[in-house]
């Protein structure tokens, strides 16, 4: 029984946070609001050099075998530094390709991602407001797989060299994951306007895109479920980072902002809001830790606890970043204040890959109704 991160894990964290604070932070985040997905190009090389991209891979592909648990604190750092980069997507794509891809797929994509030559992303949305596998159909024509359909909520699509999307094949009657290369014919990207302007999202339309036979990963449903589970744990950790950073800034601010003859932090209303927020933060922290561990271990309870963590951390981050605005007062409402950058990021994270209410309803099917989804464990116990 040991519920703490190791010194090695903290070293990975410190170095990631150091890099991200230097190279990203509120400054780059603001640039992203103006420039869009392009800012990711300024980061990708630096993240690769430090071994952050593909760090989970085996050495053969340029990685260092970091587990999701090792990596969890890196996602936290990304939240703290408001990183405008599809880090969760990058992690998920490499993890999925290494586990489920064949040799050809792995050789083709993994070294390029680890080296920062290709930014990967994922077409999360099914176009119905959900994050299921629907939306893209495959048809065989003249011996080639042709894809038709639409997916939404594709982060940083404009700079991605690889888009992972689920698709449905009528021929084989099942779901597979397709690896798409933007720039090839039949693939169009349409930007969506985002509340979090530093995390550009797009919709993806496929109109006869010719998919190479090699760029297919199966079994799609299982891999997609795993992709979502890992992403939920990663986003939960990023939300924690966002909230803890703005909470730290808020604490600093209320210690120095004076009104009525002293720092506003001496008022009980401020203290109690801070105490409540701290409690939520620390609770999200242990929830995330447990989720990262179970997901990392491949525990059958992983999906359940990833949902718990994401729903809790998402709600927490909405609340804590909202309180940060309130406790900063009017100044937080100006564009020049950094507070809104954290606020918008937190609210985006909270809705990404499912509202908290959606995730809890999924949990309820298991805990209340005793129904198990594909990939869920059956061993739920105390």
């Amino acid at each position, binding site marked *: 029984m040991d519920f703490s991160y190791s010194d090695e894990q903290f070293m990975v964290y410190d170095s990631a946070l150091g890099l991200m604070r230097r190279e990203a932070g509120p400054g780059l985040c603001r640039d992203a609001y103006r420039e869009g997905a392009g800012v990711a190009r300024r980061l990708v090389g630096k993240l690769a050099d430090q071994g952050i991209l593909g760090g989970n891979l085996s050495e053969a592909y340029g990685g260092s075998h970091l587990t999701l648990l090792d990596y969890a604190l890196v996602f936290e750092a990304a939240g703290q530094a408001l990183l405008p980069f599809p880090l969760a997507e990058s992690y998920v794509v490499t993890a999925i390709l290494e586990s489920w891809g064949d040799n050809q797929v792995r050789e083709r994509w993994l070294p390029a991602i680890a080296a920062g030559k290709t930014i990967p992303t994922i077409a999360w*949305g099914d176009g*119905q*407001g*959900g*994050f299921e596998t629907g939306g893209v159909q495959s048809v065989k024509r003249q011996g080639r797989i042709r894809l038709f359909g639409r997916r939404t*909520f594709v982060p940083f699509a404009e700079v991605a060299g690889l888009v992972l999307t689920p698709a449905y094949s009528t021929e084989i009657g099942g779901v597979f994951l397709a690896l798409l290369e933007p720039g090839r014919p039949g693939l169009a990207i349409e930007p*969506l*306007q*985002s*509340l*979090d302007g530093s*995390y550009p*999202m797009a919709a993806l339309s496929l109109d006869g895109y010719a998919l190479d036979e090699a760029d297919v990963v199966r079994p799609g449903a299982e891999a997609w479920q795993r992709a979502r589970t890992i992403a939920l744990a990663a986003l939960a950790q990023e939300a924690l980072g966002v909230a803890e950073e703005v909470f730290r800034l808020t604490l600093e601010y209320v210690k120095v902002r*004076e*009104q*009525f*003859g002293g720092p*506003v932090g001496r*008022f009980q*209303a*401020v203290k109690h809001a801070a105490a409540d927020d701290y409690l939520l933060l620390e609770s999200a922290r242990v929830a995330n830790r447990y989720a990262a561990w179970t997901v990392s271990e491949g525990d059958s309870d992983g999906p359940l606890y990833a949902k718990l963590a994401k729903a809790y951390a998402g709600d927490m981050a*909405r609340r804590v970043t*909202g309180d940060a*605005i*309130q406790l900063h*007062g*009017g100044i*937080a*409402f*100006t*564009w*020049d*204040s950094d507070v*809104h950058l954290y*606020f*918008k990021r937190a*609210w*985006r994270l909270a*809705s*990404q890959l*499912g*509202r908290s*209410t*959606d995730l809890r*309803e*999924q949990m309820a099917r298991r805990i209340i109704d005793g129904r198990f989804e594909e990939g869920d464990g059956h061993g739920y116990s105390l």
Partner: protein
Amino acid sequence: MDIRFSAEHEAFRERVRSFLTEVLPEGWGTSKHPYPRNPQEQAEVGLCWERTVYAHGLAGLSWPKEYGGQGLTWVEEVIFSEECARANAPAGVNGLGKGLLGPTLLVEGTEDQKRRFIPPLLAGDEIWCQGYSEPNAGSDLASLTTRAVLDGDEWVITGQKIWTSYAHLADWCFVLARTDASAPKHRGITFLLVPMHQVGVTVEPLVQLTGEAHFNSVTFNEARTARENVVGAVNDGWRIANTILSFERGTTIVGRHAHYRREFDTLLDAARQSRGENGPIADDAHYRQRFMELWSEIEILRFHGYQVITQLQTKSRLGPEASMLKLYYSEMHKRLGELAMDVLGGAMPFAGGLDSLAGGDLHRAFLWSRAETIFAGTSEIQKNVIAERVLGLPKDGRP
């Protein structure tokens, strides 16, 4: 008790509806004819609106006729507000003049001031802004440092004000300035009316988190105004400021429910089209509860408004209990904004998604709601006021 509107009042409502049908383009404020987004265009529309309302005899409904008002009552004001909100009529650019300065002048101004300032205010010929907050005087407004010194027949004003909406359009500003630095901080403040079009006044836009510049920073650098442009006595400005604050916190709620109701209806439409884990959000029992809680709260805001009107018919102004209403609607609106984000859900971060049906109104409502619990007195300040001045709980050493 009789909550019905009288036949005369219902006739007035008809008149307002006809007016709105006549002057607004068809489909105004819907996707068919969306509200202008360009600030310049918004300002033009707003200014035009002020003059149109005035030209149709609908400005200053409850204000005395001798100053250009219509000599009617608060009930007509409510009806007018409700109908405008329902039709999504333009916001106007003289809300601070009509909502705050005018009512204050009517109570505290001299006869000359009323004759000089109120008619052009109502006609939309002079637009007003409010010079209150300073970078280091927010909740603790009385610690303001902008100073005014008498130089012969003129006040000379120096200092910086922030959060001054409409300053770039305004002809006049009502300013709180320190006129006696040696007095206790609440005792040395004077309420001045200052012309904006002069060399000593600089207006700079203050971009807010929505990306728009609705507010400004105004710098007074030896700006001048005539000696007689003081409301109330010299060094009695804090009392005047409190009068105006209770207008800001109280009477501005009258008719406000109709505005929230329109947002609520927009949101409910979105909920019918948005899907969650249990199908359409409008069919999900969790969201139905939240919708009905909000609907109830908006209705209760309407009832609070009736209470205020009834009170204003017998007393001419509101006491500190007005803090209650500002607290009520700002916190309620925050919940509405949060519900909107949940309803839009996966589509939430994307103004281009479902919310585009409403021209992005729900996003704007969400972001603005975060300011409403801060401006015009934070929720924390309102609670202090309620606890100390209404409920009689002891002060704790604060001045």
